[in-house]
């Protein structure tokens, strides 16, 4: 704990200096506060509008969790299906790359047409951007099992499904966790972009603050979304750590 604090000391010091300089620069009027509000103003707004910020954050969190759960379930299932049926993989995987390459901002309007304004569109948006990393990582994990263990398991001539269940899936667990860690950040982006267009949560709070020229509130919203993403990554890390401490899913003993 103390070691971690010491390691992060330069970063905290830099942040503190940045905040002080920022406060002075804006306070002295060198930069107009309607362009860049002072840290103290952002803080005051956060305290004042805490109930709204909190509600918006929770709504966004809900959409992220929905999208991420969908990505996890469908990404892992698809990866297992692709791994078991190579022809399926060659047929469908190229089109899954679509999910990775298409800019979410570009298809968000389409999602509104399909799912209307509201949570469904936001969840779909979070889902689409977070699917690929989980799918790709799981597939890699399933493929990169230890050849020595494959040989060992092969001695007992198990069925293909038994082999997948007892060797490939456990071997893929660290990869799946890495995929989740990447996807949770993407799902946050997907949810907020979805909310810009379909409404609700932090996305619409930031968007309406912009139309009202409330730069302080825009900053508060941005800050809330960063904290949210960070908290989600930390949660995934904690879950991964606890899981791997209980059972060492590693490639070699």
């Amino acid at each position, binding site marked *: 704990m103390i070691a971690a604090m010491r390691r992060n000391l330069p970063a905290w010091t830099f942040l503190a200096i940045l905040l002080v300089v920022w406060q002075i620069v804006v306070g002295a009027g060198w930069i107009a506060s309607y362009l860049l509000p002072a840290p103290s103003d952002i803080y005051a707004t956060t305290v004042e509008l805490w109930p709204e910020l909190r509600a918006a954050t929770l709504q966004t969190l809900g959409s992220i969790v929905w999208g991420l759960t969908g990505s996890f379930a469908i990404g892992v299932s698809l990866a297992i299906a692709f791994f078991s049926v190579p022809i399926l993989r060659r047929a469908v995987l190229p089109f899954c790359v679509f999910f990775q390459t298409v800019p979410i901002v570009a298809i968000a309007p389409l999602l509104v047409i399909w799912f209307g304004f509201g949570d469904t569109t936001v969840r779909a948006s979070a889902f689409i951007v977070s699917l690929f990393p989980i799918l790709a990582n799981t597939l890699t994990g399933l493929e990169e099992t230890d050849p020595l263990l494959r040989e060992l398991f092969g001695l007992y001539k*198990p069925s293909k499904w*038994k*082999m997948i269940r*007892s060797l490939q899936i456990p071997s893929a667990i660290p990869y799946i966790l890495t995929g989740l860690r990447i996807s949770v950040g993407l799902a946050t982006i997907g949810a907020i972009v979805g909310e810009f267009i379909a409404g609700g949560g932090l996305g619409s709070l930031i968007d309406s603050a912009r139309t009202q020229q409330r730069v302080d509130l825009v900053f508060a919203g941005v800050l809330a979304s960063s904290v949210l993403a960070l908290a989600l990554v930390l949660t995934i890390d904690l879950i991964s750590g606890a899981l791997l401490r209980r059972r060492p*899913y*590693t490639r070699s003993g």
Partner: protein
Amino acid sequence: MTDAAARADATIGETLIDAHDLTKRFANRAQDTLRLSFSIPARQCVSLLGPSGCGKTTLLRVLMGIEAPTGGALTIAPGLAGNVSYVFQEPRLVPWRSSFENVRLPLELTGRDAERSGEIRTLLASLGLGERVEHFPRELSGGMQMRVALARALITQPKMLLLDEPFAALDERTRFRLQDLLLDLRERLGLQYVFVTHSIAEAVYLGDRVLLMNRSGQIDTDRAISFGKRDQSLKLSSEFNAQVRAFSERFATLERDA
């Protein structure tokens, strides 16, 4: 049963493994890795000895069916087929499985009753791992890991064990203890084994018969070994050392020729 009695029995027992002009050539090699004939009667424990790279491991893998032979005939007695377990050079435990779960693995994968937990615990305890049942491989010493690997090979109640230099990476004390464990298993369970090693003393100590292979994958020397009783004190006896010396001289010639 004493070793001598086992030998006498073996001479009249049925042939379990018969290799006739057995050859194995890997696709990327110009020469055969193996070219040999031999047969193993029931109850006989065989040490496969030879300089490194002579094809001992390949022979063991062919016997197990991991590798297919390229020529000749390999006959495995019907009673033996499917009743052979293999022990790799390294423990090769599944890192995310406890000792217990590692031993249960063959039962799960072959679809046999995997709920024989009492049996697994008894087996682990008999190998001195009673306190390590729930430990993961990374929490065990090399010797303990190898004993878990032995338990995994034994849980299917095989008639024969094929062991590929299983104790080579262990310290001497642990190696001696595991050698005696193997002799004990043989005594208790009537277990028969083929033991690959590059240690002459180990080959002589564990085998009723030592097959010495040369670098061309042929059998150079095939000699029966018989001792009254095998324990570590045997290694100090003159009869044991005479055997070791005889093999040492031949072994040295084989290494020089290469």
